[in-house]
């Protein structure tokens, strides 16, 4: 029988400082969950990118909007949610930055990095219509 997952919720202001703060929290939660140094870095960067996306695009740098960051520690995985108060986006609408026509763009690599560093990444719509980014990192057996 699996036990109820431990849940940690952080509400962040839409400030540039929230990005590094979220990264630090993500790395500490990952360490507590038993992930090694390399995975802690990868989880931290994925959280960094997710919160940066919420800061820039979702909440459009509007301080009155909040970013809800949630960690759920399951037996076999760490699940992370980043919820913003923007208008949402669909994963399939994000261009692949590795395509020739996008290679020299300044932006658009965050989702690719999150996908590379996490085992599962999906974008859902939150209750308020914002983006609900859900990422999971599995414990290696």
């Amino acid at each position, binding site marked *: 029988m699996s036990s109820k997952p431990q849940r940690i919720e952080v509400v962040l202001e839409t400030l*540039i*400082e929230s*990005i*590094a703060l979220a990264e630090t929290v993500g790395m500490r939660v990952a360490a507590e969950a038993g992930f090694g140094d390399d995975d802690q*870095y990868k989880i931290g*960067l994925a959280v*960094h*990118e997710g919160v*940066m996306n919420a800061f*820039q695009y979702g909440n459009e740098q509007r301080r009155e909007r909040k970013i809800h960051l949630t960690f759920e520690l399951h037996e076999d995985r760490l699940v992370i949610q980043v919820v913003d108060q923007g208008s949402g986006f669909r994963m399939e609408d994000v261009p692949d*930055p*590795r395509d020739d026509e996008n*290679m*020299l*763009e*300044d*932006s*658009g*690599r*965050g989702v*690719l*990095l999150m996908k*590379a560093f996490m085992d599962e990444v999906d974008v859902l719509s939150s209750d308020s219509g914002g983006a609900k980014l859900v990422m999971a990192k599995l414990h290696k057996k």
Partner: protein
Amino acid sequence: MSFKASVRDIGDVTVIDMDGRITLGEGSDLLRDLVHQYLGKGRRKIVLNLAGITYIDSTGLGELVSGYRMVKSEGGEIKLLNLNKKVSDLLQITKLYTVFDIHRQEAEAMASFHT
């Protein structure tokens, strides 16, 4: 550690030695300004020495690309030097290793510029 940079002019090559993090709000704007500033001085051969860079995010990668575009549009060349494993992995994931000329030794980077 926040971003720090120092600049060396060696002949007609400008080497920008960087330390710390290149992320949104930590170094990305400074890097762009530095490249722009030295291009404005007529420096067209630029080496970005990333030996001291401990962390880079997608915004930082975007600033490297922006620097590449700026220098190329002025008829110059930009080289990357001394990437650590984390930065190297990010360039592999994003395929940016196909864009940049990357070197491990400064002398090799210096010699790689076309005259």
